[in-house]
């Protein structure tokens, strides 16, 4: 593959990582050994030519990576074999790796999201083997020590290699849901430390969409683009959360919205609805409203009905109650809420909002304070605390 015009070298390298792993696997390396060798080659590139002047850059970065990684693989295999000879007096070469799938990159996505992995392991392995991030970058993004992340990744690789050795096939069409779940988790982590995980998730989902033909992959990509388009408007300069209804819609990224809507429409036209397409459809309805008051809440409720049918998730039912409150008034929203378990996360926050709109300020303030105590993150806790304080100070809401 040739470098794309104006693509920075580090981005190019990361795009090449899954391809180079694929080459090594095709030559007979097993997945774990190939991944190790390519990571070594990547670190070598970062250490040698990547920071230097353009003249130091190899003419063919992919060829360079393949050569260095293959040499590392052979060195590791030789020292492994030597160690085994010393330990077991047996000098066998390692077993040849699995026969590669037609598309090496696609196969890697499936391996890294293998159902035998815990979610956090699948996420870490995907970011390294498919995303080409270094262990240090992944550790920084998830705020854990590098040694811990290194162990998490190496255990994940051992697990996957063992599954492959057992002859496990894990790249059937239905399994794509597992891959999408991992990418969704990466996206939801957002931005922390040096690594923009949301942007990385979009890059990986885009790459997956190019290599596969599944409307839910397109649905997830559309969902990510539509949410990402609102990122700058989601927080105030001081870091405070800005709710959807109060966001400055002029700060939404119209290019990302247009792309998300286009991808979603093409996916919906194939008439194989899934939860990511339905979520993206709701995000698109919000993106489509020039002002919050112009949101088509009736359609939003209809899409939530689809989502309830597809997922039967209590969290979806909770969000549906909010939409019902907007479409049919706060009493209707409270009636929908009454059917749900009061212990659901954010139940109190939704109830507080609906009670305030219904004019019951004392109940709203009490529930906002309770919701703040139950919040799972600082930004939301602070937002809910301010809502309670605002009502207690007699300041009306914005609507």
């Amino acid at each position: 593959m040739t470098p794309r015009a104006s693509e920075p070298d580090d981005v190019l390298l990361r795009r090449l990582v899954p391809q180079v792993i694929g080459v090594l696997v095709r030559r007979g390396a097993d997945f774990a050994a190939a991944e190790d060798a390519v990571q070594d080659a990547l670190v070598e590139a970062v250490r040698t030519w990547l920071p230097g002047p353009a003249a130091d850059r190899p003419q063919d970065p992919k060829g360079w990576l393949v050569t260095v990684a293959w040499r590392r693989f052979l060195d590791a295999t030789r020292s492994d074999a030597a160690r085994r000879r010393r330990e077991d007096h047996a000098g066998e070469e390692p077993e040849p790796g699995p026969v590669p799938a037609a598309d090496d990159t696609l196969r890697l996505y499936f391996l890294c999201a293998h159902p035998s992995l815990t979610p956090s392991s699948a996420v870490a392995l995907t970011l390294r083997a498919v995303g080409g991030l270094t262990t240090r970058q992944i550790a920084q993004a998830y705020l854990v020590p590098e040694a811990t992340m290194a162990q998490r990744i190496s255990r994940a690789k051992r697990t996957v290699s063992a599954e492959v050795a057992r002859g496990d096939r894990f790249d059937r069409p239905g399994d794509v849901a597992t891959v999408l779940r991992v990418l969704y988790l990466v996206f939801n982590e957002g931005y922390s430390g040096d690594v923009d995980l949301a942007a990385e998730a979009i890059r990986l989902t885009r790459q997956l969409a190019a290599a596969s033909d599944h409307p839910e992959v397109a649905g997830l990509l559309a969902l990510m683009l539509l949410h990402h388009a609102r990122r700058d408007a989601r927080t105030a300069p001081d870091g405070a959360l800005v709710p959807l209804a109060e966001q400055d819609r002029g700060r939404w990224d119209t290019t990302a919205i247009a792309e998300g809507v286009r991808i979603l429409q093409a996916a919906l036209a194939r008439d194989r609805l899934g939860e990511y397409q339905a979520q993206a459809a709701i995000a698109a309805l919000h993106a489509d409203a020039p002002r919050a008051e112009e949101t088509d809440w009736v359609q939003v409720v209809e899409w939530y009905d689809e989502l309830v049918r597809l997922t039967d998730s209590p969290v979806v039912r909770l969000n549906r109650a909010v939409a019902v409150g907007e479409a049919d008034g706060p009493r209707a929203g409270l009636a929908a809420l009454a059917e749900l378990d009061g212990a659901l996360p954010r139940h109190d926050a939704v109830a507080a909002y609906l009670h305030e709109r219904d004019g019951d300020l004392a109940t709203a303030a009490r529930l906002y304070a309770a919701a703040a105590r139950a919040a799972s993150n600082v930004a939301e806790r602070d937002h809910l605390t301010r809502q309670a304080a605002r009502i207690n100070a007699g300041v009306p809401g914005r609507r």
Partner: protein
Amino acid sequence: MAKYLLLKHYRGNPAAVNDVPMDQWTPEEVSAHLAYMDDFAKRLEGTGEYVDGQALAPEGAWVRYDGEGRPPVTDGPFAETKDLIAGWMVIDVDSYDRAVELAGELSAAPGAGGKPIHEWLEVRPFLAAHPSVTD
């Protein structure tokens, strides 16, 4: 993927089952206890779940602001303070159930007679900085 604090108390937690103060153990029992804690941390690093572990001195001071241009006021320690933190471990795990499982193992550290202490540890979830993007 969530972080939890496993909090160990000198004081303020309910009484342990094997509730003999450490200074009344044999030196070997003390060594065995410390080795258990060390192994536990190493094992968690191996499973990719370890974030941090620290021990605290039992004695500290209370400090507060005393107005513009004045040095802070210090006081204490106050013997009547009910809660006294001994140390902590921070873990990064896939579920609350896994955090509870690990706290249970940590509470099984050996004490007097080489028997598990069964001490009460506090498990507290960390608050993330932000809600997830699609929330």
